[in-house]
């Protein structure tokens, strides 16, 4: 098997995640889709790392995880406080940035 297949899988997962961001309204699910996209990227990095025979790709994936962790912490905090004030987890309810 050609390891390029890992890249195809990563592309597929990324696209699914992006589509999820576009069609779901629940902020938490939205967040999960973002995580899915990040993981797809990580998979691509790991595959590249193997192809090029160095560890830099893995390092990048490692940093991506750390940043994702930070992002999730802050993002979920935002969701919680949003839910407290609006009693809703729908992104479409936060549509006040228009005339």
């Amino acid at each position, binding site marked *: 098997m050609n390891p390029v297949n890992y890249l195809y899988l990563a592309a597929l997962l990324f696209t699914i995640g992006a589509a999820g*961001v*576009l*069609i779901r*309204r629940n902020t938490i699910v939205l967040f999960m889709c973002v995580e899915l996209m990040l993981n797809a990227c990580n998979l691509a990095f790991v595959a590249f790392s193997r192809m090029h025979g160095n560890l830099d790709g893995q390092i990048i994936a490692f940093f991506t995880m750390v940043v994702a962790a930070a992002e999730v912490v802050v993002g979920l905090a935002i969701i919680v406080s949003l839910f407290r004030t609006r009693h809703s987890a729908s*992104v*479409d309810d936060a*549509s*006040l*940035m*228009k005339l």
Partner: protein
Amino acid sequence: MENLIALLVAAPLLGAAVLLCGGRRLDRAGHWLGTLLAAASFGIGAALFADMLGRGADDRTMRQHLYSWIPVEGFQADIAFQLDQLSMTFVLLISGVGTLIHVYSIGYMEHDERRRRFFGYLNLFLAAMLLLVLADNYLLLYVGWEGVGLASYLLIGFWQHKPSAATAAKKAFLVNRVGDMGLSIAIMLMFTTFGTFAFRPVLASAGETSEGMLTAIGLMLLLAACGKSAQVPLQSWLGDAMEGPTPVSALIHAATMVTAGVYLIVRSGAIFNGAPDAQLVTAIVGAVTLLFGAVVGCAKDDIKKALAGSTMSQIGYMVLAAGLGPIGYVFAIMHLVTHGFFKAGLFLGAGSVMHGMNDEVDMRKYGGLRRYMPVTFVTFGLGYLAIIGFPGLSGFFSKDRIIEAAFAKGGTEGWILGSVALLGAAITAFYMTRVMLMTFFGEKRWQPAPDADAAADVEPSAGHRPGEMPHPHESPKSMTVPMIVLAFGSVFAGGFFAIGDRFLNWLEPVTGYEHGHPPVSALTVTLATMAVLAVGVAIAWAMYGRRPVPVTAPRGSLLTRAARRDLLQDDFNHVVLVRGGEHLTRSLVYVDHSLVDGVVNGTAASVGGLSGRLRKLQNGYARSYAVSMFGGTAILIAATLLMRAV
């Protein structure tokens, strides 16, 4: 001696400053001060003249550098004077006639409470005019040029309480601006072409410049001359300028200022010599104005306006002569000087008549005045004989030489110009005889002075009561003496200048001279002139001497009526310039409203409409924005792939 040149200008300038700033305490002595300073200027001029005569013909140019006005690298404007034979001629004419007219004004303006101011303006005029002819560069000449324009404006509108005078002053000012524009453009062209505008370098290097540039400069100078000297097409202001006091008409609008254009052309002779086209245009302008002024002069019943038409016509002669090149320059100046004498004399005579006739200006209400005003009659009569070119008097010599020079131009042009000049002489004889007959001969046609309403509209120096019959009387000594002096000039100046070619020899080093070869002999020209003169006088006598003159003007032919309206010059200006300007501005406003505002408003409306549609994209839903981002990313990938594929 050179150091005295500045004093020529300084004396009247001091007078103007003192008189205009001095206030009412100078009311009693102001006119004496003004006259004294004018006479001082004449005295200095005479001293310089004596000094100049003592030198050799090539050594007569005197210079005085006062100070650097605008000393900038590559742009040197100096307050510097140049007194050569040409300037000297003008200095003597200006300060001499100017002094005489100052004296005359003492009597003429006696009843005017603003006499001090009048003398201040007269002195200002003298200073500016002397600056004009003494300047050694075109920029300083321009200063004097504007100065005389200002003085002219102030003096035409001296009786500013009369709306007609105020309007006439504004008209003169505006029309002069057109000409001044020409002079300023000419100076700019000179600067770009020669890098300087001083007379000596400009005129010396004129021969090495391209003819096109010389023609451009020449035509611009001609435009300036047209404005200042009331030549077609900028002639319309001179007739209205007669609203000013009569001494002003005599000094500024007959003897001196209006001849500044001739001075400018003769002074710039080197430029015109290199531009035959500009010369031809100059000659044509002169010829057209010559006939134009003469025809207007024939129809006017207002004595001053008739004389104004005559002035226009005579300056036309000078411009025609100046347009002939070196064969004509000297005679242009000679006619200018003799004209200065007799026309000033005629105006002063007219002023004297008006003074005696309750400021009546309509010649149809004169008649038979020769017995009541003998001095005026004789001096006016001598001026009349001089202007029509009666053999032996001043006008005879100067005008005859111009007609001769016009024929000597050669070719068809020469014949046409010469014939026009000849025809002009006949018309001159006609209208001047008409003025003479209507004023001093025939029966009395005096009318009572106009009533109170109209009286407010006439010169306040009158001191007469409404409804009173005029009591013609001779004017005081202060007025008659200048008239007598000018009459002497009118009689003898021409002969003095012409016999032995004195004037020619005097001026030739400055202007150059070429002896033309007229197709007919000089004697033939003289005889022809005499013949047309006799015809003109005879016709006038047949029309106005043999028959009584009606008090109310007959309707007259179409030409007469047109000439009464100054040959429709104002109507022409109104239709072409005023209406045209109105239409232009109206269409510009329309363009502004429809096109400019349309584009602006259309842009705003389309931006507004587009925004109205685009704001629908701004729906506030984060997911919609995410779709745009995602689509954009897809397009980016597509573009990258395409670029790699290419």
